[in-house]
């Protein structure tokens, strides 16, 4: 499997969990402290911390220390790179069907001319 696919696989594995997907959704609005992300889902700080660690090690989010001691105040933000690969996958599916429809159009209009003559 090409390297890019392995990276995409990791991205998708990280997103396989609904709590982590919700984190991504929340961060689409802008950077947020870990405590707020936990609160938004009714999760404990340690549970959210585990999810954030997965997202961080897969490179989907980055953290900045909001406080030297309290990790709930660390500010999380989305990293764009991995999502570009997701987008590119979606684009592949679109390309697949757009190629198909173009072939259909070309064939149908060739046939239409044939039927008229």
């Amino acid at each position, binding site marked *: 499997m090409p390297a890019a*696919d392995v990276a995409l696989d990791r991205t998708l594995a990280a*997103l396989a969990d609904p709590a982590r997907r919700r984190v991504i959704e929340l961060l689409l609005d802008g950077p947020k402290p870990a405590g707020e992300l936990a609160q938004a889902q009714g999760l404990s700080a340690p549970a959210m911390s585990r999810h954030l660690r997965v997202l961080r090690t897969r490179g989907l989010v980055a953290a900045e220390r909001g406080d030297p001691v309290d990790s709930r105040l660390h500010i999380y933000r989305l990293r*764009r790179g991995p999502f570009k690969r997701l987008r590119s996958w*979606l684009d592949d599916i679109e390309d697949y069907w757009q190629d*198909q429809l173009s072939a*259909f159009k070309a064939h149908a209009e060739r046939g239409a001319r044939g039927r008229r003559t």
Partner: protein
Amino acid sequence: MRPTDSVTVTTVVALAPDAAFAVFTDEVDAWWRRGPRFRSRATEDGTLAFTGGRLVETFADGERYEVGRVLHWEPGARLVFEWRDRSFAATESTEVEVRFVPDARGTRVTLVHRGWDRLGPNHPGRRGARGHAFLDVLGLWWADLTVSLRALTGRH
């Protein structure tokens, strides 16, 4: 199902809807593109046909590969069929809907491919064949985020 769990493509064809629908279905083998990216075998193209309520690819050695059942057949207006890759489990399927709408230039044909959220995170599509790179990851539910992700990465 949220509407972002889908891919939509469209074209306009210079035929009336009835004729466009007939070409789309009766002549599917003539227009459906060839090669491993579009057909079910890597080495050989079979013959595609909507037959017996199914979309089937038939090969020279007699194999009949069923792409999926036809779920809705409304000539001149709407066609819905299941779409599955060889790597899918027997119970797994996605869905393709094609609408034919009259347009000043003929017929607007709009195709929607949806249903990835029905596939489990570990479904066999993730081990999909070379040339089907996008199928490797079909099973993971992420499409809900599609619109936002596209905004994030600066397209559409």
